[in-house]
């Protein structure tokens, strides 16, 4: 413990913090790429139902490939570094995101959609005013799960030279005091918990008060629920 604290004090600025930044950047970038592909794809397979099984099937197969194997598989094609890491990480996040996005849009009450159409909303208005706001909390929940798994998987990316907290773990294996190792583990935990908290907060912000019953003080009701 003592050695860990000393290590952190001495090296946080130049050894731990840069790895953390690398880790967060890599994870975020992978998540972003996955989102750009997954949101339209998930929406598309929710609209065109017959397309869902083949798309999800392919993604599921991808998901069964062990991460280390996928990283290794990409190295001969792309070389080492961040490029194969981003490809592999995005691919894994994609599986979760496409699935959840589809579920989120499927979950919009058909009666609500019919009412919106029947009132004269154009397809774009139905999408942006009705479907997206209603699907958003579940989409964000999916993003949270994808983010957590990406943060974890990014650790492995260090073994193909992509940097991040995994680098600290690799180096830490050879350190007899294991200070580096512990510092790495703790930092990954902090990143994961922070991501979890941020996305849970977003999820709550996007949620609509669907289950509150009419009471004198709805805000009081919410507090009880949070507790």
């Amino acid at each position: 413990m003592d050695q860990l604290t000393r290590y952190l004090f001495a090296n946080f600025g130049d050894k731990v913090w840069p790895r953390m930044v690398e880790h967060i950047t890599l994870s975020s970038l992978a998540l972003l790429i996955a989102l750009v592909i997954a949101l339209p794809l998930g929406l598309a397979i929710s609209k065109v139902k017959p397309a869902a099984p083949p798309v999800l099937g392919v993604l599921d197969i991808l998901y069964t490939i062990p991460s280390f194997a996928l990283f290794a598989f990409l190295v001969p094609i792309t070389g080492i570094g961040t490029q194969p890491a981003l490809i592999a990480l995005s691919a894994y996040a994609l599986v979760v995101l496409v699935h959840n996005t589809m579920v989120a849009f499927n979950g919009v009450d058909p009666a609500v959609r019919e009412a919106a159409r029947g009132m004269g909303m154009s397809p774009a208005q139905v999408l942006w005013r009705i479907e997206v706001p209603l699907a958003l909390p579940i989409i964000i929940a999916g993003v949270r799960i994808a983010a957590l798994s990406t943060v974890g998987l990014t650790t492995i990316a260090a073994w193909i030279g992509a940097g991040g907290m995994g680098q600290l773990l690799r180096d830490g294996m050879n350190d007899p005091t294991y200070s580096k190792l512990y510092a790495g583990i703790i930092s990954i935990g902090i990143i994961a918990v922070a991501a979890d908290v941020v996305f849970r907060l977003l999820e709550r912000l996007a949620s609509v008060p669907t289950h509150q019953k009419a009471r004198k003080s709805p805000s009081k009701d919410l507090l009880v629920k949070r507790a």
Partner: protein
Amino acid sequence: MSAQDVQLTTNNSQLTTSEIAFEHVTKRFPSAATPAVDDVSLDVQQGDLVVLLGPSGCGKTTLLKMVNRLYEHDSGRILMQGQEIRSFKVTDLRRRIGYVIQSVGLFPHMTVARNIATVPEMLGWDKARINSRVDELLEIVGLQPGEYRGRYPAQLSGGQQQRVGLARAMSADPAIMLMDEPFAAIDSITRRRLQDELLNIQQKVRKTILFVTHDVEEAIRLADKIAVMRAGKVVQHDTPLRILSAPADDFVTELTGAGDVLRRLSLLDVGSAMLPANGVNSTPTTAAAAALHPRDSLRDALGQLLGSGAETLPVVDEQGQRVGTIDMAAIRRLTHPD
């Protein structure tokens, strides 16, 4: 101009203005062997509440949804105010037609006020006009604006939700309303109250309403005209009175239970059988006399006539104004039209 003249001119104008007209309309769904709607021709007059009545699968909802083009008709013509509905842009058409469905379909992420404001917002009304319209509509459907504007749909009871659904459908003051079993999912006491309120609202605003139901009593309570449907065809299109007293065939007889005289009387209201009072006699009656309301059932009237032993009973409206009289002969005329 006397009241009778007004009556005549409105009647005349009604002869020429059919608000919705179906002309040989047919709709087939790809998976079905028989057409859902089969060569239907039907005229809906301006200001009428026409009920499409029939068992499930008879095509009534399909017919309704073709008006706002949620379903497209395969052949024939559907005219709104004389114009084929396909000549309108589909979103414009729908914004001009109020639409109420059984499952209400309120937008759960929007407050009551924003739900009601949906169509006016799309039509580009200014904020002040929208706000006052929302309040006005909430009053009309019997919800206190101050209390309900800011609520979310999940914070309302089923009956309240459908009131908001009704307000939302009327928001841009459409001439036509389509109502697809709006009260079917609501408990019978609330349903009855909502039916009464719909009638009261209809008396004030006089929309042209197409109303789908499989509930005979609801149809008879609400309708100016009933179109009884079976297997995609309209088998009888007539007033509730005529549907009950002169059913077109065995199917209609069975559907309405018209063979049972007492049941038939319980479905008909006093207003449909009474002798209207002419202007001279319409003095307020004393409250002491046993009196009937135009919306009481004829079964109640029969009971009162037999119970009181009176030859005739006065019919009195909400304001205590005598609007007519009812006697045994009037009831007999309905049960034995010949």
